[in-house]
């Protein structure tokens, strides 16, 4: 498998995304919301209550950080489903499959084209979130809470793993549906396990410390590998041309 060939596909898809307004919206809206909304909420609550206890603030900041993982599960859905379903709608996969590219190179190219824009958008959102939170919480904590190891594990390990999982799942779903909306409806399932983890932490059932986060990341990586094999099984040119609806 040649990475250079996969990269050619990804570059072509980036060019297409540049002209797709809804791809931009799907990439930008969520990171913007969480990176601006959460610091604003903390600020408003602090102003109303005359300041929050430090323990409560740090718990909230860790919990809010988990939203970058939840977002990573559904932000790439539209872009990932578009890369496959869009080609299905335009019927542009057949000439692509008639080139010397291997199935793996095409699949890898599609994965990269969904992974990189999402990672960039979410990472920028993560930086804005950390800066905003530090600005808002410094007067109450007397130190800058971010960056720390928790957010590092979330943004550098857990979030990319969750994006890959979402992209792989989208590829599988995309092979069975005909339009981007249907694919995205199925893809929303990806968001549920991470929402479950968030709620469990809020209910005090688990603590989102570094060890727990690394364990969750490990589980996601295993799921990534399984999904990759499932998606490569489904992404075979004969299947695409004769069985994909």
């Amino acid at each position: 498998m040649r990475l250079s060939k996969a990269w050619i596909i990804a570059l072509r898809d980036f060019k297409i995304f540049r002209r797709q307004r809804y791809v931009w919206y799907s990439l930008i809206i969520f990171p913007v919301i969480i990176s601006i909304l959460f610091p604003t909420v903390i600020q408003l609550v602090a102003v109303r209550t005359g300041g929050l206890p430090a323990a409560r603030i740090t718990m909230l900041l860790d919990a809010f950080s988990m939203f970058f993982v939840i977002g990573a599960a559904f932000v790439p859905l539209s872009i990932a489903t578009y890369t496959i379903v869009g080609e299905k709608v335009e019927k542009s996969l057949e000439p692509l499959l008639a080139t010397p590219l291997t199935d793996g190179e095409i699949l890898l190219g599609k994965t990269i084209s969904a992974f990189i824009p999402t990672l960039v958008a979410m990472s920028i959102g993560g930086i804005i979130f950390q800066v905003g939170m530090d600005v808002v919480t410094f007067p109450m904590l007397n130190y800058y809470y971010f960056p720390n190891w928790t957010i590092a594990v979330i943004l550098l390990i857990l979030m990319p793993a969750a994006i890959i999982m979402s992209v792989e799942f989208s590829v599988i779903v995309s092979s069975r549906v005909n339009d981007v909306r249907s694919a995205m409806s199925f893809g929303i399932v990806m968001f549920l396990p991470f929402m479950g983890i968030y709620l469990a932490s809020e209910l005090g059932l688990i603590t989102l410390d570094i060890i727990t986060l690394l364990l969750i990341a490990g589980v996601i990586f295993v799921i990534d590998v399984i999904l990759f094999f499932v998606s490569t099984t489904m992404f075979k040119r004969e299947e695409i041309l004769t069985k994909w609806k």
Partner: protein
Amino acid sequence: MIDTANINQKFRCPSCGNIQFFSGSPGQQIFVVCSSCGAKGKITFPSTTADESTMIHVSHLKKVFGDLVAVDDLSFSVKRGEIFGFLGPNGAGKTTTIRMLCCLISKTSGSATIGGYEIGNKEDSIKIRKMIGLVPDNVGLSENLSAYDNLDFYGRIYDLTDAQRKENIQRFLEMLGLWEKRNVLVRTFSKGMKQKLAVARALIHNPEVLFLDEPTANLDPESAKTVRDFILELKKQKKTIFLNTHNLDEAQRICDRIGILNTTLRAIGTPQELEQSVSGKKTVIVLEQMNNVILNTVKKLPLKNLIQEGNQLTYDVIDPDKENSPVVETIVKNGGHIQSMNVVGSTLEDTYLKLVRK
């Protein structure tokens, strides 16, 4: 070309990858044992062999989807620089055949080679895909990219240098009258422009063989003519062209040879050979007035495929001089007045309809 001499066939061991050559007669099937690991395998020698002038060689090719036999026992050859047309109704297996030859789908049985490389062999498949260009029945362009970017993308896939890509893109877009629109998004193009761009895309890497699946379907006459003229231009450049169509007129105008397909290959030959092969000639007699007495008397004569349409009678003839005399006599005897009588050759359409209805 039928070759009855013994031929060599490559055997790649499925277990250890060892390659051996075995000799056998065309069409023969033998069981072999790998000399390296002892694994057993089976070889089918192609029933015909290809010479150097053959670009595409197909032998007993078959494709089955579940219970549906899409293509069965297909055998033919296409020479280098030849325009070969596949004629057949919808569902005849034309697209399935192109997909098998382009290594997009697997064969169920039989064999085929493109430029000496074998379809179904993983390594050869990559080589085949490097030397072919495909225009599928749906053009399959990226609608949200410009014409230039569509071609540039494929040029990169085929490892063309920057200079080669620029040169080829400009050459083909100019030839097809699209250069001025190179930076316009494809989604704004007409069907004809898209079809032309798809042809340019298939040629961007200068392939030896071009597969065209219904290239002029749904095009207006002017666009269809541009595409046809371009195909004929490619023939001058010695490209081998494999064309699927159900447009008889198009096949007749541009193909050197035609195969008529309806799951199985029903006939193969030049357009002229096919016209003469099945139906022979027809006599067309036009009377001033047709009546039942004339018609019933003529019907009693031993005429093949007699058809009456208004005042016109049409029937098949092998020897017009011999067979037309009794008909004329019968008509005149029964008071008929003949306005005109013509002997016409059968058309490709007659042949086609007869063969696909078999």
